[in-house]
């Protein structure tokens, strides 16, 4: 009994202290809010928001509820995070490998890029891309068409919209291709393990993902046409493009700066991962007759990934959280729409800030869980 108490005593004290501190703050907030006549409650979420948002993935205007405004902000945060993570990963891997290149120029250029972009505060980079780069862009009426169909202007990037007919058939054909590829891969692996035969899985996969959707066009009645943006005059010197899809410059600047910044860190993770694999491993692999490609694919990468994934997860989390700097350049993310405008219009500071904090927490934990799962999957399984 004595032993047990000594064991759990400190833990109990800690829990008690946490509960007390938390309880004190809650009580304090309650008393002060009561004194100042501020109500507490989440009822406002169903009220009409009566403000508009510049850019939204779901249908939204001021006649929808505050909850819907919250969803708009959340989806915009997820959108810019996903774009940022994808771009940062691609760029990071390229730069990370480039830093190990024996080519002096490529090597030094990659090193310069990493040192330059990771040592300037992100907010400054966002301002640079938004304000400095934006000012250099042409007005809509002066913009030259890119490939004859897209326009990069100070008011955003205008690209053609896809107009699909029978899109569902096209979608099913891609699903079918993915299922077929998975089955073939499993079969190929079995074949290699039991009979030692190699199947050209990559070629078959590429073929399937091209042929099945193509078939849907030929016999499935799927049609695709483009709607090209057209210049429209609003006033003597004020123009916009109509039709097509417009990407606001705020999104472009934010995604660009987030990915350029985060890619530097990912590049360092990749470099560390590859350098972390022992030289002997590569030499041993080569000595048993594997081609350089096979060495990279079968020996180096599986081991390097185990080193790369955990720190890269941190970078993904950072990128997602850093996306809240969006408020500075008017990108309507969760912080700007919900913890900004909605908070101001309702005055529900505690409620909204707590929801926002909880949302970022959930987002980050989701990314963590996903990456931990992947990390476990590629970890060495001791036999």
């Amino acid at each position, binding site marked *: 009994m004595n032993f047990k108490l000594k064991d759990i005593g400190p833990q109990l004290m800690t829990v008690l202290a946490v509960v007390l501190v938390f309880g004190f703050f809650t009580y304090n907030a309650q008393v002060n809010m009561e004194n100042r006549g501020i109500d507490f409650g989440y009822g406002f979420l169903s009220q009409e928001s009566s403000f*508009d948002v*510049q850019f939204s993935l779901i249908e939204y205007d*001021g006649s929808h509820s505050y909850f819907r405004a919250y969803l708009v902000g959340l989806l915009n945060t997820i959108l810019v995070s996903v774009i940022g993570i994808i771009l940062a990963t691609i760029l990071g891997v390229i730069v990370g490998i480039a830093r190990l290149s024996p080519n002096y120029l490529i090597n030094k250029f990659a090193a310069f890029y990493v040192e330059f972009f990771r040592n300037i505060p992100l907010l400054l980079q966002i301002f640079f891309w938004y*304000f400095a780069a*934006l000012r250099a862009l042409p007005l809509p009426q002066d913009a030259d068409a890119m490939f004859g169909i897209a326009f990069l202007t100070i*008011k955003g990037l205008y690209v053609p919209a896809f107009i699909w007919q029978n899109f569902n058939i096209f979608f099913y054909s891609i699903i079918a291709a993915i299922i077929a590829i998975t089955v073939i891969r499993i079969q190929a692996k079995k074949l290699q393990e039991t009979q030692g035969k190699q199947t050209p899985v990559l070629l078959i996969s590429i073929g399937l993902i091209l042929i099945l959707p193509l078939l849907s066009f030929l016999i499935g009645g799927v049609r695709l046409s483009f709607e090209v943006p057209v210049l429209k005059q*609003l006033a003597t010197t*004020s123009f916009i493009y*109509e039709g097509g899809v417009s990407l606001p410059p705020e999104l472009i600047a934010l995604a660009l700066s987030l990915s350029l910044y985060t890619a530097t860190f990912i590049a360092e993770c990749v470099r560390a991962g590859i350098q972390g694999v022992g030289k002997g491993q590569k030499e041993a692999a080569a000595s048993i007759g594997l081609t350089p490609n096979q060495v990279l694919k079968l020996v180096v990468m599986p081991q390097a990934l185990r080193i790369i994934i955990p720190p890269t997860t941190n970078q993904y989390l950072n990128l997602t959280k850093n996306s809240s700097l969006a408020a500075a350049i*008017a990108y309507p993310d969760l912080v700007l729409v919900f913890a900004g405008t909605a908070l101001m219009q309702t005055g529900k500071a505690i409620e909204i800030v707590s929801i926002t904090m909880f949302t970022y927490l959930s987002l980050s934990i989701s990314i963590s869980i996903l990456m931990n799962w992947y990390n476990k999957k590629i970890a060495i399984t001791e036999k």
Partner: protein
Amino acid sequence: MFKYLKQLTSLVAMVAVLFTFTTESMAAKKSKTLKNTQKKGFVRCGVSQGLPGFSNADAAGNWTGVDVDVCRAVAAAVLGDANKVKFTPLSAKERFTALTSGEIDILSRNTTWTLSRDADIGLTFVGVNFYDGQGFMVRKSSGITSTSQFKNGISACTNIGTTTELNMRDFFNSRGISYEPVAFEKADEVVAAYDAGRCDTYTTDKSGLAAQRTKMKNPDEHIVLPETISKEPLGPVVRQGDSVWEDIVRWSLNTMIEAEEYGITSANADSMKTSDNPQIKRLVGAEGEMGAAFGLDNEWNLRIIKQVGNYGESYKRNIADTGILPDRGPNELWTKGGILYVPPSR
């Protein structure tokens, strides 16, 4: 004998306790905010992050503007020195939280008085120091001279967390015009983005438009359209629940406006003490007990007028002479065709 002594002592003690209690409650009547302010030695005032004419800091960090003058007036009344103010620049988003959380004691930051703000969020508006309305600014070269020329797809830059965002929606919706709202957290960024050509129009309170225009690369390239789409009575705000402090701020503002009405200026305030008009004498602390109810001395209003000036002086110094809005419009006294009208100090 000793028995009586004991009783006597307890009686004295009781009286003492009772007496302490009454003095304590008298002091409490002086208001917690007032006591704290006098203890600290400065008034904590929330202002904008830079709006010429209203609250703007120069290179040396000196704040000027009509909103700033309200805080200075309170400092002159309460502490005897109009310079004993600590200014906290706040974004539109931060302002109410800063006030309700007790970080500042007066919010004098071109804030629109609306029902929901007054009723919902633990604030009390004490008055109006500027009657404003929302308008639009466009480039002269666009050829637009009226909001009726706005077309579908127009992009409008503005601030978040303001009534502007709501009025803008009402305006465009009622006319059936689709628009792209581009809302920034800070005014400087709104100006930069509009100036760069990101938006076709910039919308906020007309006084704000006039003030921000002076910050643009080339102010002459822009015009403010004549239409006013909303009522924006701007005024100082205090926390709910301290009615004495609320009264002090309200009557500091009223004193400035009424002083103008009676022709009392910073220059002639002292000589007005011997005026024949009892109302003027009350306004310079020469008659009546005008400060006692607030727990202030009798010359609190004289100090406001001497150190800060009357409303007209403040307007001229900050808004007219700087070329922002030379015409006082509705912000003229009721006796001169405007709508400035305050209850009498008596």
